[in-house]
């Protein structure tokens, strides 16, 4: 029966993809192959894209990772402005404000920090950052987010008129752990689907 045959073919493909993802280094090769190169050079501003925070304002690990990367870039004197993005939940403290407070604790002066708390998608982030930085004559930016997200974020910020220097904020993933390989593959697949959606919608 054709239905059984289709199910078996889909099942076979699923099993092959699962075993390849979990038990071989293929996800790491894919990640290395697709990851954008870090382009660290002096720019007009550092833009740290939003990740997530709890309703109480506690930053997620991904958010802290990006924030740390942004602070390190500022510490190296690569840009005079540090822009943090990220909204809040249920009227609570915003992610961007939490990041700004964290940066001030690290010795970054308040005058160098800008926040944007209303954007809800990467596309909206590009539009809002354009509105925020255009009056300050910012042309070039160091764009901080994870590698997989950069594929979608970079063209959006370029479209907004910025000269973008990508700065991936990735962490080390143990290539020997099947669980981490699966998580890596999942992350790559999600961002690929997101990129396809943005491409179909004409945002890229």
């Amino acid at each position, binding site marked *: 029966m054709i239905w*059984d045959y*289709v*199910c*078996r*073919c*889909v*099942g*076979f493909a*699923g*099993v092959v993809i699962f075993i390849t993802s*979990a*038990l*071989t280094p293929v996800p790491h090769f894919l990640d290395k192959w697709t990851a954008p190169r870090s382009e660290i050079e002096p720019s007009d501003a550092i833009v740290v894209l939003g990740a*997530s925070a709890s309703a109480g304002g506690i930053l997620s690990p991904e958010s802290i990772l990006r924030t740390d990367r942004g602070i390190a870039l500022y510490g190296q004197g690569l840009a005079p402005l540090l822009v943090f993005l990220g909204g809040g939940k249920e009227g609570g403290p915003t992610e961007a404000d939490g990041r700004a407070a964290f940066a001030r604790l690290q010795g970054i002066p308040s005058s160098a920090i800008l926040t944007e708390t209303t954007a*809800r*998608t990467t596309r909206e982030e590009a539009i809002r950052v354009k509105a925020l930085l255009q009056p300050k004559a910012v042309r070039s930016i160091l764009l901080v987010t994870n590698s997989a997200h950069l594929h979608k974020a970079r063209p959006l910020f370029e479209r907004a008129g910025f000269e973008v220097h990508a700065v991936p904020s990735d962490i080390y993933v143990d290539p*020997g*752990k*099947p669980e981490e*390989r699966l998580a890596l593959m999942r992350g790559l697949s*999600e961002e690929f689907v*997101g990129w396809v*959606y943005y491409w179909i919608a004409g945002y890229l």
Partner: protein
Amino acid sequence: MRAIFISTLVVLTSVGAYFFGIRRLRLTGRTFGIALGKMLESVGITLIFMVVNLVAAVATVLAMRSLTTTFVSIYVTDDVVWVGLSLLQGLTFQWWRELSVKPRYSGQ
């Protein structure tokens, strides 16, 4: 190293289960091939359910965004629980089909 350890162990327990089935439970080698096919069918139907669920979830999120003022992040679809729930749906559907095609399982 961990991947090799896990895969070796799973191969060993699978071989053990095969011989246990043949010698103790008197299962036949011929039906083992059919069982593998059924396993692939179950995985396939689970994946089909997962794709249907995710497409429905994304469509719902996009519809809510366009039809209401409520903003729902597309990342609500990002959850490993879809796999487990799709597995339950897939196995139930698969067994439903099996029992409908082969009435001898009905217990009558």
